[in-house]
Each structure stands twice: as structure tokens, then as C-alpha cells.
């Protein structure tokens, strides 16, 4: 309780109303929240590392398949999605900055922009997935080379293209699920921002969702060249 905040309420307590009673000070409360988030992000890195290692080993096993199969993915859509996610990371960082400078509209509209960009990412993902489904470019034994060839897709790929598409769907699917979860968290943030829950002293919730959103962006930064630009 080293410094008095201007947001203190005069309800008999000499601390801000959003300071939980089991914390000494706002710094302690905020850094505890953030520490928990960083531990979770460390877990996320390790969780995705399993998927990335699967990619590395499968590529070691089937180098020719990977070089040929990635041609069936549209790198332009991948690049578009990269730009969507990078921009959403910027708006997310600006939303956190909005909280730091106590600007309600900056917080609100940057979160809205982040949700819209995340939605745009999912729409592009949906277009890609529906093309793959249409052409039979599916994981495992669902992979249908004959159907793909019939649709004019050169799917006569050496090795195990089904393995490439299994990895493509598992990695982008897990990532897409993270994007959807992030969008859900941000809808909840909008409600809390409207309610006036956040200010320059108390916005660790907003910051933690931001950290989560950036790690999702970070994973896409590696997924994009590995899946779409294997050349």
C-alpha cells in the first residue's frame, strides 16, 4: 500500500475497490495476474511445440511430399491472413495502451477492430477449408486424390500427401480454435470496458487477453512460412 491511488473509494477502506483483500497492493495484484498468464503462455509454447515437432519429423520423413503438397495451399490467402493477424496484434497493443492512458474509447474501438480482424481471419480460413473439403484434400484416409484430380487439382503427389494434410488441418485447426477463444474473450472484454471496469491502474485482465492474442499471432508467424511457403 505504498501509494494512494486517485481511484480510491471512500468506503471506509483505504484501498481501491478493485483491489482484492488478499493482495497488499495493486502492483502485487497486477503482477500476480500477469505471472499466471505468462506461466500459461509458457505452457502454450510447449503445447504447440508438440505440433511443430510433428511437422519437423514428418517433413524429414517425406521431404518431397511437403515440397509438392504445399503448392496446393494458396499462399496469397495465407499472406492475407498474416496481414489480418499482424494488424489485429497492433490494435490489441493499442487497446492496452488505451487502458494505460485511461482512454475508454481507445480501449473499446481497438478491441472491436481486433475482433473484426480475427473474424476476417476466420472467414479466410473458412474459405480455405471449404475448398480443401470440396477437393478431397483431407487428412489420413479421407484424402481423396481421385476427387482432387477430377476437380483439376494436381494431387498426384509422391509419398504421403495425406500426412501433409493431416498436419495442415491439425495445426491450423488448433490455431483457429485459439483465435475463436480469443474472440470470445474479447467480447467479454467489451462488456467489461462498457461497464467501466478498466483504468490505467487496473487493466491486467485486458493486458492478459492481449498477451494471449499476441501468442496466437506469434504461432501464426511460424505456421505461415512452414505450411504455405515451404519452398
Amino acid at each position, binding site marked *: 500500500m*505504498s*501509494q494512494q*491511488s486517485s481511484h480510491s473509494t471512500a468506503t471506509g477502506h483505504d484501498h481501491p475497490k478493485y483491489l482484492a483483500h488478499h493482495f497488499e*497492493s*495493486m*502492483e502485487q495484484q*497486477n*503482477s500476480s495476474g*500477469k*505471472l499466471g498468464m*505468462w*506461466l500459461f*503462455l*509458457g*505452457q502454450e*509454447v*510447449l503445447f504447440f*511445440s*508438440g505440433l*511443430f*515437432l510433428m511437422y*519437423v*519429423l514428418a517433413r*524429414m*520423413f*517425406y*521431404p518431397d511430399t511437403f*515440397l509438392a503438397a504445399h503448392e496446393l495451399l494458396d*499462399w496469397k490467402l495465407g*499472406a492475407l491472413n*498474416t*496481414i489480418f493477424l*499482424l494488424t489485429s*496484434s*497492433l490494435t*490489441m*497493443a*493499442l487497446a*492496452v*495502451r488505451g487502458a*494505460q*492512458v485511461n482512454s475508454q474509447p481507445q480501449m473499446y474501438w481497438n478491441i472491436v477492430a481486433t475482433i473484426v480482424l480475427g473474424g476476417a481471419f476466420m472467414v479466410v480460413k473458412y474459405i480455405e477449408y471449404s475448398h480443401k473439403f470440396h477437393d478431397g484434400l483431407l487428412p489420413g484416409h479421407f484424402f481423396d486424390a481421385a476427387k482432387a484430380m477430377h476437380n483439376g487439382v494436381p494431387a498426384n503427389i509422391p*509419398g*504421403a500427401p495425406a500426412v501433409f494434410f493431416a498436419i495442415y488441418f491439425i495445426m491450423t485447426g488448433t490455431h483457429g480454435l485459439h483465435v475463436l477463444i480469443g474472440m470470445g474473450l474479447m467480447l467479454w472484454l467489451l462488456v467489461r470496458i462498457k461497464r467501466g471496469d478498466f483504468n*490505467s*491502474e487496473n487493466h491486467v485482465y485486458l493486458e492478459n487477453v*492481449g*498477451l494471449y492474442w*499476441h*501468442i496466437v*499471432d*506469434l504461432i501464426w*508467424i*511460424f505456421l*505461415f*512460412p*512452414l505450411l504455405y*511457403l*515451404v*519452398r
Partner: protein
Amino acid sequence: MFQKLRSFVLKSASPAQSGAHASQPHVLPLKTYFAVFGALLVLTVITVVVSVVGLPQPTAIIVAMVVAAVKASLVVLWFMHLKYDDRFYSLIFIISLFFLALFFIFTTMDVLSRGQVNEEESFFSQDGIQLRKDFMKK
């Protein structure tokens, strides 16, 4: 060494050092965010161009991964504020990367070197690169 590590970790942890109120966050100027965003876009263009030009294989993937690592560092240091935040968060993140490296290095070493211990266990045929034909049936 541990003393050094400890002081590194604790450097930004003590609020008294920053001079200003510890509860007041470190606000970066807007132009920093836009500069980082611009750098990220430029690096994205570089990866795409390098791929379209088509470098020979080992070089291409190395360039792509180095560019991705630089992009990731930009996001982590500025957008995620690790550069200005409590160093303890950096330590947690670096530890997770360390275990990621362990996981990758030892698993890859195992897969690549099995044939040297026992020919039967090898994933690869004598040609080195091609997966054994009977691998899928094992």
C-alpha cells in the same frame, strides 16, 4: 553467474528504481507501435518474396525461420512489452523456449540416429533421406 542472473531478473522488479509511480504503467509512444507494425509487414513481404524467388532448399527454410524469429521477437519485445516489463516474465518465457529446444533436439537426434544403433530400428533406408518402404506397415 547466479548472482548475475538474479540481478538481471530482479532489475525491473523493484518499483523504487523506476522513479515514477510503480502502478503507473510504462506508456510507449504511438509511433513505436506503428514502427514495429511496419517492420512486421516488411518482414512478411521479405518471406513471401524469398519464397517466390525460390532459394535452394536448406537456405530457403533457414531464411524463412530467421525472418519468422525476428518477427516473433518484435511481437514479444514490444507488443507483449517484455522489453519494459518485469524481467521475471522474460525468464519464464525463455525457460519455455529452452524446454522447447530440448524437446526438438533430443527427439530429432533419436529419430535420426536409431539406425546407427540397430539397423532394424532405422526409420530411413540406406539412401539416408528416403523413408523405409515398410515404415507405414510397422
